């Protein structure tokens, strides 16, 4: 034993270590307003992603995170300077736009981008800003940020399931971006409650390093997945077998507990989005019209016939009154071209949709 060395004062060490940890942990709160998500290796070291990061398994080489800045920073859109002759088209919407079970090239954006289209004398470049949750507020949040990227046209594909008021803050990406949602409520004078309990308001403790470790790790993981995205081009799992969309349906007429759609839909969110300072094309996206059991009562898993019919009438009327650029493509795609959901299309289904949208893009300049 070394007699010159004093025995360790364990208590002192533990007190100092705890104090330092606490100091660092709480000092981290002051970094809350620093947009760390904008720091990205995408578009610098790795090519940008062709759609937003979204995924829950390692095999997809992708992950879901709530940091909208990081999502945009990883997107190819963030790294592409707009050329003089580019007619920039941004697609927003749900998982059908994002492209569940489709490779980036098979999605609507991918097919449109691969088609040589010109609009207003410029070459059309199409970007996929779809995100796989269904909520108009989520779309508005993405649309609001997308305006920074100089779009010539935003195509907003939506469906009735995105409209119910009770669905607006349900999506985790909305619930976990309370400040952004409040800013939207203020900016667009939305009649929503900014203190809605569904919006997760982080406490001071939630902003500490310990609480934020997961979000920080996600940011780092997103960068690492950039290597896998670059080397494989894979950003979701493509199972060989999956359960097809349901065509034998429950004999239920229920739609979110509503008796009538009047007052039950967040039409003000749609109106807010359509008032954005850019050209917009609103599309009622194609859905599966099933012919199985109880298809006289319901169109598909999502919608009873009465609700969807009323929604189409309301949307057409609203578009007409506001002079919106509107396309109702609800029955464009035959039932055989849907995959695992009433709104997810096969590549051939996307091709049908792409042809229609391409026409609309060109007509937009006429």
């Amino acid at each position, binding site marked *: *034993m*070394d007699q010159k*060395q004093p*025995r*360790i004062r364990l208590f002192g060490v533990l007190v100092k270590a705890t104090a330092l940890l606490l100091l660092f942990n709480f000092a981290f709160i002051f970094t809350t307003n620093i947009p760390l998500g904008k720091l990205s290796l995408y578009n610098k070291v790795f090519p940008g992603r062709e759609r937003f990061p979204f995924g829950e398994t*390692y095999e997809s080489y992708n992950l879901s995170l709530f940091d909208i800045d990081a999502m945009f920073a990883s997107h190819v859109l963030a790294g592409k300077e707009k050329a003089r002759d580019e007619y920039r088209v941004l697609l927003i919407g749900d998982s059908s736009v994002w492209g569940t079970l489709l490779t980036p090239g098979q999605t609507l954006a991918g097919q449109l981008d691969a088609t040589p289209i010109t609009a207003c004398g410029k070459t059309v470049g199409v970007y996929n800003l779809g995100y796989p949750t269904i909520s108009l507020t989520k779309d508005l949040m993405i649309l609001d940020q997308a305006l920074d990227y100089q779009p010539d046209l935003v195509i907003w594909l939506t469906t009735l399931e995105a409209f119910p008021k009770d669905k607006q803050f349900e999506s985790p990406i909305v619930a976990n971006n309370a400040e952004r949602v409040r800013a939207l409520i203020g900016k667009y004078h939305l009649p929503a409650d900014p203190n809605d309990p569904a919006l997760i308001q982080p406490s001071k403790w939630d902003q500490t390093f310990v609480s934020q470790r997961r979000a920080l790790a996600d940011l780092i993981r997103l960068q690492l997945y950039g*290597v896998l995205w670059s*080397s*494989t081009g*894979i950003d979701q799992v493509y199972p060989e077998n999956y359960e097809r969309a349901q065509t034998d349906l429950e004999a239920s007429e229920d739609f979110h507990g509503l008796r009538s759609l009047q007052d039950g839909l967040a039409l003000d969110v749609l109106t807010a989005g359509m008032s954005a300072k850019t050209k917009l094309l609103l599309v009622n996206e194609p859905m599966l019209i099933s012919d199985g059991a109880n298809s006289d009562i319901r169109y598909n898993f999502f919608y009873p016939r009465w609700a969807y019919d009323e929604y189409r009438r309301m949307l057409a009327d609203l578009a007409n009154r506001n002079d919106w650029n509107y396309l109702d493509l609800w029955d464009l795609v035959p039932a055989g071209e849907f995959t695992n959901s009433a709104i997810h299309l096969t590549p051939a289904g996307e091709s049908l949709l792409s042809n229609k949208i391409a026409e609309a893009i060109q007509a937009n300049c006429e």
Partner: protein
Amino acid sequence: MGLPQIFASILTSLLVGALTPRALRTYLLLALSVLAVFWFQPVVPLRSFDFWFPSLTLALVVLTWFVTSQPGAWKSRPNLTGLSIIVGSVTLIDLSRYTFPTPFLTQTIPPQFIQFFLFVVASSAIIFLFLRFSPAWRLSIAVLLLLFILIVLKSPVLSLQTSIFFRTLANRPTETASALDLRWLGYSYIAFRLIHVLRDKQTGRLPELSLPDFATYVVFFPALAAGPIDRAERFAKDLQKDFALTQDETLLAGQRIVIGLFKKFVIADALALIALNDALAAQVGAAGWMWVHLYAYTFQIYFDFSGYTDIAIGIARLVGVKLPENFLAPYTRSNLAQFWNSWHITLTQWIRSYFFNPFNRWMRGFKSVPMWTMILVGQLSTMLLIGLWHGITWNFILWGAWHGLGLFVQNRWSDFAKTRISVSDPRLQTALNVGGVLLTFHFVALGWVFFALSEPGLSMQVFTKLFGV
């Protein structure tokens, strides 16, 4: 070992190192290590095997000690105390099924006491049976028993069959049986520690060790899961030394632990996301990206393994045990022999002591065999053995062969160059050294293609992509 286990080990070691008198230290370390054997054992699909594997580990430790110690040594007070600690701790863990509603220390509820009691009786009977043999026989049988278990665990085919056997015995479905069912925590290391003791006893080099010292050496909790493989007599000396945790010692240990945690949980775990694996071998097409994944694997395996070693060495220092180094900047070595002197050093030394040196001595008896053949056979068989230690699969065999042939070629080149090439210009010497480091690094990295993947076909696919063939 996950972070909770590591932090619990650090805290416990701090308390033991700072507050425990020497007389109690070994006993306390033994008790903690016995508990750790159970706590660190991952869950196993076979019922109660997360209890039986640790119990078997301890039974093998006690068996080996009885086999290697003097007759009647168990009657001494320290040894009886050690035996009581081992049996008492395991009994308490088993009895916890009656006192705690959820498993305590083990992943699942321990088996019924009667089963455990029968296990103790059977183990005692086996030890008694061993002691009936002559010393030479009992040592040999013990070595063979340890090797037999190691081979079963390392061979996917035998592991699967064993799992099926136990599932059938327990009247459970066999369709879900897998070679991965037999995850026996740290057995590769435990077996090599025990074999080292048995072999040293056979050759008369083993000093008498008390049961507490011996058992603590084998299942010492910081080194349980990932080594290093210390030597028993050196370890026992550390335990017998007076020790009080000083500020300097704590600082050194703390630095080592922090470095290890950073290496393992920040660098290695991040690299693991992009490291070469079976899926990427098939999915990646471009040579450049394939190299990126291979480099990621090359550094991931180093930072993972050496990180764990740093943590183990750091924690051990807190209780006065100076575990041997396992890694000395291996990727900066300018030839393959130097690489193997700085990569998993304790395993290499073990293989050298108990296989390579005796095997070479034996081969020298064949006067007609040319030297180069002896070198080739010696290097190749040693590296094949190291490969097989990691798993009895074609890819580990190929990995071993890759390094065995590499060492042979390097040996022949060194022999050739020694007498014919002399470099006097220091700049040229530096350039040669740098070239040597790069060459060695890439040789090792390419070897990992076999190690990282499960099948030779996939490895060949990666090689063709790496070189754009």
